[in-house]
């Protein structure tokens, strides 16, 4: 138990956890290292992705959008996965680990509800107990997903502390884990938290980028010019970017939640306005005041309404390898409608931020460029809220 440099991305990452959970985190890391070396684990995971999640997901050539934007656009269709988002990739991996570790119960935090639904789904499949923590605000915003989780047999716990959103749900899940650590596996939904979570979640999401690479090389015999993804904690972006980090010709572009605009103060644009801190077990960038108090954040998207970002993203930003842009609520809603009408694909409001980033940056690309936008999830869950936002419902 000497100096532990694992889980560091430059100065970020680490394992800033309470002593009660340190043993469990080490146990998780040990189990993960063992699984990584075991071909049977990899095969089992691949089989679940194929036969249960429905992978590989389509890499769809969006021709109308390409003509409209003057470049070649592909959409990585994570919205077509079972449960409707990329979250299932990570959850199946972690649930398989939980089974190997003999855990009886899964717990999870959720913002938009997609990670909670994916966790409830895996728990139903494997016959595990499941408790999901969700902010009261998000339970209102995403009531359909609350019922989906309950339908799948999970118990959804309302969190009313703080801003009653994703960060508070995450704190409550951490508290619950320390209350009952022996038989419980905490399924973290993004590339955040104490080591080894950011690494584990990234590894289970890299299938997105790996598939993009294989298909691009098959179809075009070249790598894409740019990859675009939305980032809250940053799991679909990390999964999309990771296999391309060593390919400098591929631009990595992330869209964070600009809410009502970074200058308004009502946003969740961590990279644009955050500073280095330590929260939820990791050193990374956070929206906080000069004494480290976490400041309330806001986004129309419950899934991106988080005051921090995964430590590896903070590092990719520092090194300049990936670029981070703020997209406002209005821009995201426009993109939500744009993709619906242009391609007949209704994206999640989270993913709409990535679509908006492309429409905003179209002048940087030519018809010879190939850009891939990860559509991290489908928009059914958001239809009602966007309808209200536009004054079309009620």
């Amino acid at each position, binding site marked *: *138990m000497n100096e532990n440099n694992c889980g560091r991305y430059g100065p970020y990452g680490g394992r800033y956890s309470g*002593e009660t959970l340190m043993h469990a985190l080490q146990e998780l890391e040990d189990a993960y290292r063992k699984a990584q070396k075991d071909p049977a684990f990899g095969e089992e995971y691949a089989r679940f992705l194929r036969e249960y999640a429905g992978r590989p997901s389509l890499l769809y050539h969006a021709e109308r959008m390409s003509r409209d934007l003057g470049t070649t656009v592909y959409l990585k269709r994570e919205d077509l996965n079972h449960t409707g988002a990329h979250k299932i990739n990570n959850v199946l991996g972690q649930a398989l680990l939980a089974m190997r570790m003999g855990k009886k119960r899964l717990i999870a935090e959720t913002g938009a509800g997609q990670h909670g639904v994916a966790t409830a789904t895996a728990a139903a499949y494997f016959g595990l107990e499941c408790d999901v923590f969700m902010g009261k605000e998000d339970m209102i915003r995403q009531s359909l997903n609350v019922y989906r989780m309950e339908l799948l047999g999970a118990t959804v716990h309302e969190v009313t502390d703080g801003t009653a959103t994703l960060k508070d749900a995450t704190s409550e899940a951490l508290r619950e884990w320390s209350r009952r*650590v022996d038989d419980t596996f905490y399924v973290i939904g993004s590339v955040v938290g104490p080591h080894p979570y950011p690494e584990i979640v990234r590894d289970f999401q890299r299938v997105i980028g790996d598939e993009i690479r294989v298909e691009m090389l098959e179809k075009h015999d070249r790598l894409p010019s740019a990859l675009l993804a939305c980032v809250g904690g940053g799991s679909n972006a990390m999964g999309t970017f990771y296999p391309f980090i060593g390919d400098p010709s591929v631009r990595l572009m992330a869209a964070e939640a600009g809410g009502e605009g970074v200058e308004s103060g009502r946003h969740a644009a961590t990279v644009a306005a955050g500073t280095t801190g330590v929260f939820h*077990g990791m050193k990374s960038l956070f929206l906080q005041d000069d*004494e480290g108090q976490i400041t309330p954040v806001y986004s129309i998207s419950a899934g991106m309404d988080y005051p921090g970002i995964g430590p590896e993203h903070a590092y990719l930003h520092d090194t300049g390898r990936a670029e981070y842009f703020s997209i406002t609520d209005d821009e995201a809603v426009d993109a939500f409608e744009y993709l619906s009408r242009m391609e007949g694909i209704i994206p999640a409001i989270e993913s709409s931020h990535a679509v908006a980033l492309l429409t905003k940056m179209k002048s940087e690309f030519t018809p010879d460029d190939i850009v891939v936008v990860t559509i991290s999830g489908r928009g059914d869950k958001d239809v009602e809220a966007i309808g209200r936002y536009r004054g079309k419902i009620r």
Partner: protein
Amino acid sequence: MHQDNKIDITFRNLRAAGKKVFIPFITAGDPDIEATYLIAKEMIRNGADLIEFGVPYSDPSMDGPVIMRADKRALESGTRIQNIFDLVEKLSTEHPETPFLLLLYYNSVFVYGLEKFFEAAEKAGICGLIIPDLPLEERSEAQPTADAHGIYLISMVTPTSGERAEQICKTARGFLYCVTSLGVTGARKSYEISFTEYFDKLNAFSSIPKCAGFGISDPEQKRRIEKFCDGTIVGSAIVRRIEECIAADMSHADIAKQIGIQVSGFTGGKAL
């Protein structure tokens, strides 16, 4: 060179006298910093041997509901870290023998700036910091600065520490904060561990003084647990009493008096 840390002196003296150490915890600034000053004075007058102040945090992910609410009240009253340094400076001038500790999340130290924080803490007379989210593995970034200013980083050990316990015991300074139950801070009716087994194991690793904390809510529980160790830490039970006093609309002086009475129940020391 720094003088002996007051924490060591206190434990040495009490051990020599065959007495147990009692450490009350309150959140600094709950309901405001003036009240905290009066409450601390009453706690010392009624036999508190060390005082632990919680630095309020916006998102206390390792605390239970009682301390979460106290942190919220303290932040709403405008408590800033400088106010807490000023408070401790005043108290340590008036009570030079009492060691004062801060319990805080690492972000409060890190964002303030390590050097700046420890310098101000030393000037205020703070003897030790308990930083629950700075485990042994992450200590190296703060330890040299803490050492340079003669401030102890107090280690926590828990029933789930397993094989980590040995290293924690061997590197601990001042005293070892022995968490006696799982979960977050807060009162509990019962414990699931064998104290004999737990403390025997820890004693075998190190003779450093050991104090039990987490979930000790009444004097009877305290007396039962302290047989196995050198002292006890009581937090949520006191903070809950402060909350009741606030709800009853008591003056700061009356709140302090009530907490003094509660503390004397734990210490068997003087009341009123």
